[in-house]
Every structure is written in C-alpha cells, then in structure tokens.
C-alpha cells in the first residue's frame, strides 16, 4: 500500500482505475472495500471505462460499479493482522496480536459476524483493522474443535456413508460420520463448514 507518514498522520494515496488490482483496499461512499474484479472496456469510439466489482468490507456485500478510466478512489487504511482470540466479555470479543506487540483489540458482534461459531481461545485469526478498529474476523481454513454434543456413535460403521449433526464446542453445527463420539477432537474446514477428519 502506498501511504506516507507526515508528522504522525497517515495520508492515504489515491488509486487510479488502472491501478485497481485484486485485493486493493479503497474507500467508496466512506466504506472500505476490496477490489474483487476490474474489467477495462474501451468502446470502438468513445471514452474508456472500467467495470469494477468491490467487496464492501463492512457489510460483505459485493458492489458493481462503473468508473471512467483514469478516475481514482482514495486508498483505505485496512490491515489484516494475525491475532489470538482471548475471551468474550458479554459484549466484545477480545483479540491480541501475535507479532510480539501484545496489542489488543475488541471486536463487536458486527465485526465478528458468522465467525463467532468458529471462535476458540488461543486460536489465531485474521483480524481486519480499518482505521485501527476491527471490522472483520476471518478464521483459519482448518481448525481443530471438540465435539460438545452429538448422538451416540454407531460401532463398526466406519466405512459406509451416512452422517449426523454434531455441535462443536465453539457452537458450530457440523455434519460428521456416524462413528464420531462426544469429546473427540475433529478437524473442520471453516470455508464450507465440512468435517475433514479426526484431529
């Protein structure tokens, strides 16, 4: 990200449409957005334009916008930081940076969103900070979780298909094979919510 520090104040750069690369963070209508796609279109005669898909990082919604080629947007001060989940105080979820700074941040329910069901103490998450405050929490792709509740396992049924719901200690409900018992540690894919294996 091109930014410069002037007497302690972070000045964000402007980015022109031809710099809109996937993942670039920009401000649109005050919200931080991540560029998803940028298609340059030039009519045979006439002014070129860019059709841009941007993911609003506050809402998760994808916006489709058209810009005249050469128009620019202000960069957004957005940073992805690895942080360990500490605890929930009833209102906020607390995270601590793993880079040795021990910097702590409190995320509200909006920032935590659906990730709440994958939260496990001491696990490391990606905390997205906008102007220094958490706006999104992303779980690791694979996470080991304890089975808190499920119907009793069926002995001997280790090969055939068939599954049952299991509630993990973090709150997520995952379809697991019939032989899984309460108290077992399982490896789950958080992107699709699917069981991978015993941990």
């Amino acid at each position, binding site marked *: 990200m091109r930014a410069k520090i002037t007497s302690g104040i972070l000045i964000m750069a402007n980015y022109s449409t031809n710099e809109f690369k996937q993942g670039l963070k920009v401000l649109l209508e005050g919200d931080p957005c991540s560029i998803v796609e940028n298609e*340059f*279109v*030039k*009519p*045979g*005669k006439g*002014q070129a334009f860019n059709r841009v898909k941007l993911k609003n990082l506050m809402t998760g919604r994808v916006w*489709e916008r*058209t810009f005249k080629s050469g128009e620019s947007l202000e960069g957004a001060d957005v940073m992805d930081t690895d942080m360990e989940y500490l605890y929930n105080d009833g209102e906020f979820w607390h995270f601590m940076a793993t880079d040795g700074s021990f910097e702590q941040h409190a995320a509200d329910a909006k920032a935590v969103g659906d990730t709440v069901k994958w939260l496990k103490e001491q696990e490391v998450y990606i905390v997205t900070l906008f102007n220094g405050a958490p706006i999104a929490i992303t779980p690791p792709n694979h996470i080991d979780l304890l089975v808190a509740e499920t119907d009793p396992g069926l002995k001997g049924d280790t090969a055939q298909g068939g599954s049952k719901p299991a509630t993990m200690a973090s709150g997520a409900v995952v379809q697991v094979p019939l032989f899984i018992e309460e108290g077992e540690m399982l490896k789950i894919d958080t992107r699709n919510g699917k069981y991978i294996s015993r941990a």
Partner: protein
Amino acid sequence: MALSIGARIELWASKKAAIRAFFAARTVQEVSVPCVMPAPVTDPYIDVPQAIAPDGRLLGYLQSSPEYAMKRLLAQGAGDIYCLTPAWRIDEVGRRHRGEFTLLEWYRAGFDGAALRAETSALLQILLQCPPADEISYRDAFLQHLGFCPFQASDAEIAAALHQHLNYSDPLSRTGALQWLCAAVVEPQLGAQRPVFLTHYPLDQAALARGCVHQGFPCADRFELFYHGVELANGYHELIDPIEQRHRFEADLAQRQREGLPQVPMDEALLEALPKMPDCAGIALGLDRVVMLAAQADSLEAISLFSHP
C-alpha cells in the same frame, strides 16, 4: 492449459502466413508504413506515446493505426494495399487490451461497406474456421438487446438504462451513454454462434467513415466485427471529403479543449491527400484478438509472446 512459447509462435506465424496468402491471391499488395508519424489521431479518447529525441525534441507520435499513412499512399495511386503493423495506445490495458498490439489494415478501391464486409468474412473463415458473418444494424441491435431505439429514445430513457445496466448515475453525454451501453450490454452478446458485423453507427460516431441514411436515420457507413462478444475489426466506407474531415478534426480538438485533454496537431498531409483518394473501403483487424480466439482463450495473456505490456 497455457500454450508453450513454441505453440504461440507457430499460431502467430500460421495466421500471418494465411493472411499473406489470402491477399496474394487477390492481388492486394503488402506495404510497410512509418511507426512514427508527424500527427496522431485527433480522437479525444485515443492517446499514443510520443517519440522524443535525447535533446527533448518531439520526433513524432507512435501510430494508433496505419490509417493516415496508408491513405496517403492510396492518394498517390497505390491501389489495393494491406499492412501488418504494430500499433500503440496509452493506458489501454486489460484482458483484451495491450499498449502495443498488431493490426491488419487493408483498403480496397471501388469497394463499398458491404463488399468489404464480405471479404472480411471470407478472411475470418480462413483464420478461425468459423461460419460466414451475419450483420445487424446498430439500431436493431439496441432494439433487440436494450429495448430502445438509439436515435429516438429520450435522454431520460438512455440515462435509466445506463443506471440499470452499469450502475452509473453521473452525467454523461447522450453519445457517451450510447457508447457505454453498446460496449457493456450489446457487444458481449454479439457473435455467439457466428461472427456479426454491427453496422450503421450514429453519424456522430463516424470517425473517418462517410455518412449515409439507413432505416430513415442519418448514419455513418462504419461497421465493427464481433465474434464471441469480442470486437475484432472496425471498417469504413471511407470519407474522402477534406472539408468534412477538417470539420471532424476541429470538433475533436474542440472537445479535447473542453475536457482539458492534451491538444495535438491535425495531420495536414492526410487532409491534403483525401481529395485524391479513390472511392474505397478500409478496415483494421486486431490480430492479437483473432489469435486469442483461434487459441480458444479469453485473455491476450494466453497468446502473447511477451508478458505484460
């Protein structure tokens, strides 16, 4: 499945060889033209690189097409000619755009738009093993894909379509809005089964084409070719009236001034040549995109010999 460098070289070489054989059989002769020209196109939305001497002198402009140079040859009695040449545009980079690309441009004396479209279709069938090209007028394409007539729709109707299809609400000229809607909504749907010529553009999008009347509306005898939604070529029944051409150049320069775009010189040599030019039709075909389609790729990346730019 990326093509190896060997496969890319072979693909390009085979298409160039097929083009040269096609024109040799029709006694159209190959010419080379200067890459650096004294004036660029005046089109406000085409910018080209400049050639600058070490001491800062402007040597000229890298051409965005060999058109002006070829027309000067036509005016001197060159006859039927074609040219395979690099061309340049600034800030046009994307899946289907490169700052430097290859154009095949040719001119046919005595041809009108229809005759040149037929010849272009014949060449494309050889290059892409595709069916013969269809054609649809600009007006019919708008009626079919956007539901309004580009000549008769109200400004409000066009603005509403722009908002609906492009989520764009800032002010844009009527012509600009039609150009965007054409490029974003109409063109991607053209040529799904067979190549299609889009013909008879509104007169204010004539560029260097002569005017005509079509379906009762004043049009430009200009056409573009599309296949699988990709623009491949742009052709004209050429304007040979120097007074009308000077007016268009001046209108372009006035628009550049209004919009704060760089001023450029007019190509006086072209204006001088126009009255001596034969009645003819000409077309520029983007060879990179043809090779891209031949490779069944959807990005120029897949067939370029050199990575970006």
